C-alpha cells in the first residue's frame, strides 16, 4: 500500500504548489494568452522528439522520466511532468530553473542533447505554461477535431520542391497553422523526401509517394507523383494488349507516370515462371517440349488450367500458409501440428473458398486430435495473442502496437485492440494443455459460458467490438467468434479480400501492391489502388476462389512481361511495368535439385521420397532449408520468410556435401546420362532444359561440348561439372 499512499501525497503536494504558484505567476504579469497543456505543450513534446519511442516515450521511459508515446495520453504526461521527480521537472516559482527547460535547451547535461534554443518559441511557450501555473486545461477549452494538409495531391518534376502546410481545426470552428509542430514522413523517401519543416523534395526517380503529416495523433496525407520526363504518346498505351482488367489498370498507372512496359518474356521464361508460381516446381523436359510443340492460341490458358489441377498446387500453396500459421511442435505437440498441417493442405486440395477457410479456422472447435484447425487456439492461448495474428493475417491491420499504446501511424488504440480481443474471450478448453517439450496430450476447445477481456488501463470489461462497421452478435449461447467470422468475411469488409489478393499478387508478381503485404493503412497506400480494389472485387464475385484469382493474375498480359527493363522503366520497382525477379523458395530449390539429380532428400518424420514441400514442420533437420530460410516458428509475431540471398546460401550451393553427393551420386541422373548413349550435345540440351527450362544457344552448346572434349575429363565428370555450374548460376536460383 505504501507506494499508492506516497503517490497520493505527491498529488496533494503538487496540488498545493500549483494553487500557490498560479497566483505568483499572475503577479508576474505574463502575457494574457493562456497556454493550454493539451493544445500547446504536448505538441511541442512530440515535435521535439521527447516522447518518441527511442526516448522518453518508450515503455520504461528514459532515466526515470516517461511520457506517453507520441503524446497519446496527455493525462499521463501531465502527471509525469508535474507530479513525479518531486516536482523538479517544472518549477512555477522560478520557471527557468525547471528541469524541463534546462534539459531540453541543453543548459544542463541531457542524454538526448539540445532539443530547442533557449531564446526560441518552443522554450518561450513552455516557460509561459510553467509560469502560468501548469494548467492542465483551460476552462471551456476547444478540442482538436481535424488535421488537414495542403496540397493533398501534387505532381512534381525531378528535384522540384513543395512545402506542405498543416492546419488544425478545433471544436469551436477555429483553425491554426500547425506546420511547425507537425511531424512529416514519406513512405518512399527515395522518391520524395520531406524535411522536418514539411518541405517535400522530389528525387530523380519517377514514381509515387505518400507524405504523411502527423499532428497530435492525427494524420493527413499528401500524395505525390513524379512522372518520368519526356512524353509518351497516348497511342502507345491505347494499343497495348489487354488480356483482362488487370492490364488496363496497370497501363493507366504507367501512363500517369510516363513509364512504358517491357517486352513480353520469352516463352521458356514464361513457362518456368508459371510452373514455379503455381506448383512450386520446374517444368520437366517433356513438358517443355510439349509446350513448344503446341501451336494453338490458347496454349498458355491450358497450361495454367492444368497446373491448377495438379496435386503439387495444394502442397505448394498450403506450404505458404503453413509459414504463417505453423507453430512449434515442441510447444504444442507433434500430433497437433501434424493435424494442423493436414487441415491446411486439405483446404487447398479441395480449393476451399477462402472465406470458408478463414471462418472454419477462426471459429474452430473440438479436439486437437480430430480438428487440426483448433491448434491455432492451442498455440495462442490468450485472446490478445490470437487478436494480433487474426487482424494481421486476415485484415492486414497490424494491431500489435495498439496492445500496449496507441498505434503511432494509425487510428487504433488500446480500446480497439481489446474490443477485438473480446471476441476470443469465451474459448473454453479442457484436456492436457501445453507441457513442452512434448505436449503430447489431447486438448478440446469449446464455447465457454463465461469469460471476458478487460482494458488493461481502465480495467473496464469490453464487449466484443469490430474494428470498424457493424457486427451484429448472435444469441447469448453463440460463440462470439461466430459473429467475428461473419464480420470478417462479410462482403462489406473491404480489408478482408484486399489483404489476400495482395498476398497472392505479391507471390506471383514479386511485389505487393501494398508493402509490407499485410499492412493496409492510409499512411501506407497501395501503388495502384484501383487495381487492388478491382482484384478484391473480382475475388469476392468469384466467391473467394483462390484458384480463379491465380488464374486471373497469371492470364494477364502484365504477368508475362520480361524482367529486362526498357529505357523508360528501369527504375520502376513498384508498378509492374516489368517482371521483378525473385529467388526461388528453399523448398522449391531443394525439390528442383532432387528432381534434376533424381536423388531424393531424406527427411525425418515423413514418408520416404517425400518432397520438401510436403514436410509438415519447420523443425525437420535440413541444412539446405535452414540456409535458404524458413520461418522461425518460435518468433513472435510470426514472420514471413524472406527471399533474400546470403553468403551462406552461396556456400551451400557451392560446397555442401549434400548437393555434391546428389550431383556425384552413382544412382542418380548424372550417372545415368553419362552412361547413356546420348551425344554430349543431347546431354547438354537435357541439362539446360532441366535447370533453365530452355535449350542452350549455340555458344552455350559450344561451352558444354568443349568441356566434354577436354582431355583427361571423363564423360561423367563433364556432366557433373556442367550441372554443378548450372546449379550455381542465378538463372537457376531465380525466377526470372
Amino acid at each position: 500500500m505504501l507506494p499508492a499512499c506516497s503517490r497520493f501525497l505527491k498529488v496533494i503536494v503538487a496540488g498545493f504548489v500549483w494553487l500557490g504558484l498560479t497566483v505568483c505567476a499572475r503577479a508576474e504579469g505574463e502575457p494574457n494568452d493562456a497556454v493550454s497543456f493539451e493544445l500547446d505543450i504536448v505538441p511541442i513534446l512530440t515535435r521535439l522528439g521527447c516522447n518518441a519511442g527511442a526516448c522518453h516515450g518508450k515503455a520504461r521511459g528514459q532515466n526515470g522520466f516517461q511520457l506517453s508515446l507520441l503524446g497519446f495520453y496527455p493525462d499521463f504526461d501531465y502527471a509525469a511532468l508535474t507530479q513525479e521527480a518531486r516536482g523538479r521537472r517544472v518549477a512555477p516559482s522560478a520557471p527557468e530553473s525547471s528541469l524541463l527547460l534546462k534539459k531540453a535547451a541543453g543548459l544542463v547535461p541531457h542524454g538526448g542533447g539540445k532539443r530547442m534554443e533557449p531564446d526560441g518559441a518552443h522554450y518561450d511557450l513552455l516557460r509561459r505554461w510553467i509560469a502560468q501555473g501548469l494548467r492542465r486545461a483551460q476552462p471551456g477549452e476547444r478540442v482538436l477535431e481535424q488535421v488537414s494538409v495542403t496540397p493533398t495531391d501534387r505532381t512534381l518534376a525531378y528535384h522540384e520542391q513543395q512545402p506542405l502546410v498543416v492546419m488544425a481545426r478545433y471544436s469551436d470552428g477555429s483553425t491554426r497553422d500547425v506546420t511547425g509542430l507537425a511531424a512529416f514522413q514519406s513512405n518512399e523517401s527515395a522518391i520524395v523526401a520531406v524535411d522536418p519543416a514539411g518541405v517535400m523534395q522530389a528525387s530523380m526517380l519517377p514514381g509515387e509517394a505518400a507524405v504523411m503529416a502527423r499532428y497530435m495523433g492525427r494524420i493527413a496525407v499528401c500524395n505525390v507523383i513524379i512522372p518520368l520526363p519526356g512524353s509518351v504518346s497516348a497511342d502507345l498505351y491505347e494499343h497495348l494488349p489487354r488480356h483482362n482488367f488487370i492490364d488496363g489498370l496497370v497501363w493507366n498507372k504507367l501512363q500517369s507516370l510516363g513509364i512504358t512496359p517491357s517486352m513480353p518474356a520469352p516463352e521458356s521464361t514464361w513457362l518456368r515462371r508459371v510452373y514455379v508460381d503455381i506448383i512450386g516446381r520446374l517444368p520437366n523436359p517433356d513438358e517443355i517440349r510439349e509446350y513448344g510443340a503446341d501451336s494453338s492460341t490458347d496454349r498458355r490458358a491450358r497450361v495454367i488450367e492444368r497446373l491448377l489441377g495438379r496435386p503439387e498446387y495444394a502442397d505448394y500453396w498450403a506450404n505458404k500458409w503453413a509459414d504463417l500459421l505453423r507453430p512449434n511442435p515442441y510447444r504444442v505437440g507433434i500430433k497437433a501440428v501434424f493435424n494442423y498441417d493436414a487441415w491446411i493442405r486439405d483446404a487447398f486440395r479441395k480449393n476451399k473458398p477462402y472465406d470458408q477457410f478463414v471462418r472454419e479456422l477462426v471459429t474452430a472447435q473440438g479436439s486437437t486430435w480430430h480438428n487440426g484447425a483448433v491448434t491455432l487456439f492451442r498455440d495462442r492461448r490468450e485472446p490478445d495473442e490470437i487478436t494480433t495474428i487474426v487482424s494481421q493475417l486476415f485484415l492486414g491491420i497490424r494491431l500489435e502496437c495498439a496492445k500496449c499504446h496507441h498505434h503511432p501511424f494509425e487510428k487504433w488504440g488500446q480500446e480497439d485492440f481489446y474490443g477485438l480481443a473480446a471476441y476470443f474471450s469465451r474459448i473454453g478448453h479442457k484436456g492436457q494443455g501445453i507441457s513442452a517439450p512434448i505436449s503430447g496430450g489431447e486438448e478440446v476447445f469449446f464455447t465457454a459460458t463465461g469469460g471476458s477481456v478487460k482494458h488493461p488501463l481502465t480495467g473496464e470489461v469490453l464487449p466484443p467490438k469490430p474494428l470498424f462497421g457493424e457486427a451484429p452478435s448472435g444469441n447469448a449461447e453463440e460463440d462470439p467468434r461466430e459473429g467475428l467470422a461473419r464480420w470478417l468475411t462479410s462482403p462489406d469488409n473491404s480489408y478482408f479480400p484486399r489483404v489476400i489478393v495482395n498476398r497472392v499478387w505479391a507471390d506471383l508478381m514479386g511485389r505487393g501492391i501494398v508493402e509490407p503485404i499485410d499492412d493496409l493503412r492510409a499512411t501506407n497506400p497501395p501503388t495502384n489502388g484501383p487495381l487492388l480494389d478491382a482484384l478484391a472485387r473480382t475475388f469476392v464475385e468469384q466467391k473467394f476462389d483462390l484458384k480463379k484469382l491465380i488464374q486471373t493474375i497469371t492470364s494477364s498480359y502484365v504477368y508475362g512481361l520480361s524482367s529486362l527493363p526498357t529505357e523508360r522503366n528501369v527504375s520502376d520497382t513498384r508498378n509492374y511495368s516489368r517482371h521483378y525477379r525473385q529467388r526461388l523458395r528453399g523448398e522449391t530449390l531443394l525439390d528442383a535439385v532432387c528432381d534434376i539429380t533424381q536423388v531424393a532428400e531424406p527427411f525425418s518424420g515423413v514418408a520416404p521420397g517425400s518432397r520438401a514441400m510436403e514436410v509438415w514442420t519447420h523443425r525437420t533437420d535440413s541444412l539446405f532449408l535452414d540456409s535458404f530460410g524458413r520461418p522461425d516458428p518460435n518468433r513472435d509475431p510470426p514472420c514471413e520468410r524472406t527471399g533474400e540471398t546470403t553468403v551462406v546460401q552461396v556456400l551451400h550451393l557451392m560446397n555442401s556435401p549434400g548437393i555434391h553427393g546428389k550431383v556425384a551420386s552413382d544412382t542418380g541422373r548424372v550417372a545415368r546420362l553419362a552412361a547413356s548413349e546420348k551425344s554430349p550435345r543431347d546431354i547438354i540440351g537435357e541439362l539446360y532444359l532441366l535447370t533453365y527450362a530452355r535449350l542452350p544457344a549455340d555458344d552455350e552448346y559450344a561451352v558444354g561440348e568443349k568441356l566434354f572434349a577436354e582431355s583427361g575429363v571423363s564423360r561423367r565428370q563433364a556432366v557433373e561439372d556442367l550441372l554443378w555450374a548450372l546449379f550455381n548460376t542465378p538463372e537457376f536460383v531465380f525466377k526470372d
Partner: protein
Amino acid sequence: MPEYRNCNGVTRRDCLRLGVGGLLGGTFVDALRLRGLAADDAPRATRPTSCILVWLDGGPTHYETFDPKPLAPSEIRGEFEPIATKVSGVHFSKHMRQLANIADKLAIVRSIRHHDPNHGGGNHYMMTGAPTRVPVGCGDFVSFHPSLGSVTAHERSAADGLPAYFSMPNMSRSGGPNFLGARYAPFVTGDNPNSTAFRVRDVALPQGLSEGRFQGRRDVRAAVDKMVRINDQAAGDPVRALDDYYAQGYNLVTSPAAQKAFDIHSEPPHVRDKYGRNTFGQRALLARRLVEAGVPFITLYEGGWDHHTDIFKSLDKRLPEFESSVAALIDDLDQRGMLETTLVVVLGEFGRTPKINKDVGRDHWASAMSVLFAGAGIPGGQVVGATDRNGYAASERVLSPENFASTIYRKLGIDPDKVLYTPDGRPVHIVSDPNPIAELFA
C-alpha cells in the same frame, strides 16, 4: 588469380613454415589477419575483440562450480568440498582444478539474477538480454529479441566472406536473429570435430573434389552464367547481390589462410590433447581458430546441465573434462597473445536450487548464478558480487541479465544503447539497460 591451396594438400613442411608447430608457436593466422586488415584499408593497432560464449544449457549449478558454500547445512552445501585457487581468498568447488590454477585470469560474477526459472524464459533472457514479453514455459523455444550473436553479426562483420556468427553444434534456443533477418542467423556447424572426418560444413570444397577440378567448374560456371544483370542501381536487381556473395564465397574457398582456420586436423596433437579429445574440447579449439580468422562471435552450445537427479555423480563425470577444456582455451589464447582481444564467457540460463532434492539433484533457480568471464581486458583474479551465506540469492552487487548483455556488447565495441528498428519501424534498444558490469572494465 591468386595462388590457392586446399587444406588437404598441406604438408607437414607447410605447417612448419606457417608456424603452427606448437601451442607456443607463432600464428599462421597473422598472415590472414594482415590480409584482412589490408583488405579494408584501415589498419588497426589491435584486432577487434571477439567473443566465445560457452552456453551450458539446462542451467549449471553455482554451488558445484564457482560459488561453494562450505558453511551451509549439508542439505545445501552438497557433497563437494571447496578448493583454494591461485587468488587467495577465492574458492571454487572441488572439480574446478584447472580453472582454479588460472583464477588470476578469470572474473567470476556471482550475483547475476533474474525472475525466469524455466528454460524457455531463462534462455531467452540470458541469450538476448531481454526478458520474454509473455511468460513462457520450460519447453518453449522463443524469440522476441535478437540474440547476442545476431546483433554482433549485424553490427560487425567477419573478414573474407566468413559468417560472423557461428554456433556449434547447434543453435541455442533463443540464439536467432529475430527481426534482424536470416542474414544474421548463426552459421551452425553440427558435426563432431573430434572425428577424423570432421570438416566445417560448406566453407571448404566437398571431399573428393580436387582444387583443379573446382577451378575448372568455376570457369564453366563463368561461361554458362548468361543471365542479364540489370546494372542500374535503381532497378534493384537481386541477382547482383548473388554475384557479390559468389565473389565472397570463392574468396573464402581459395584463401589458404581462411581454409587453414577451419582445418582442425592441422593443429599439433599435443594442442588437441590439451583441449581434450572430446567434442567440447575440440569445438573450443575450433572456436579459437575461428577467432584467429576474424569471426566476432562463436557460441559453443553444451547441453545436459539440467541436473534434477544425481547431480554429484553426473558432475564427477562431466566437470573435470569440461573445466580443463575451458582452462586450456583460456590458457592457449593467453599464450598466443589473443586473450586481450578475446572475451570468453561461460554460463547457462540460471543457477540451481539450494536444497538438494529427493532425487539427489538440484532444480531451477534464477535468484543466483555464477558466470565466468575472461579476456578482453577484464581484470582477472576477481569475484564480482556475492550470494547470501547459503547461496539462495544474489545479495551483494545484484546484477541483471541486461548488465550482462551490455558488458558483452561493450567488450565487442557495440553500443548497447543503440537503437535498431524493426521492419515495422518500431525502435528497439539493443539492451534496455545499457549499463555494463563496471568491475569488468579496467
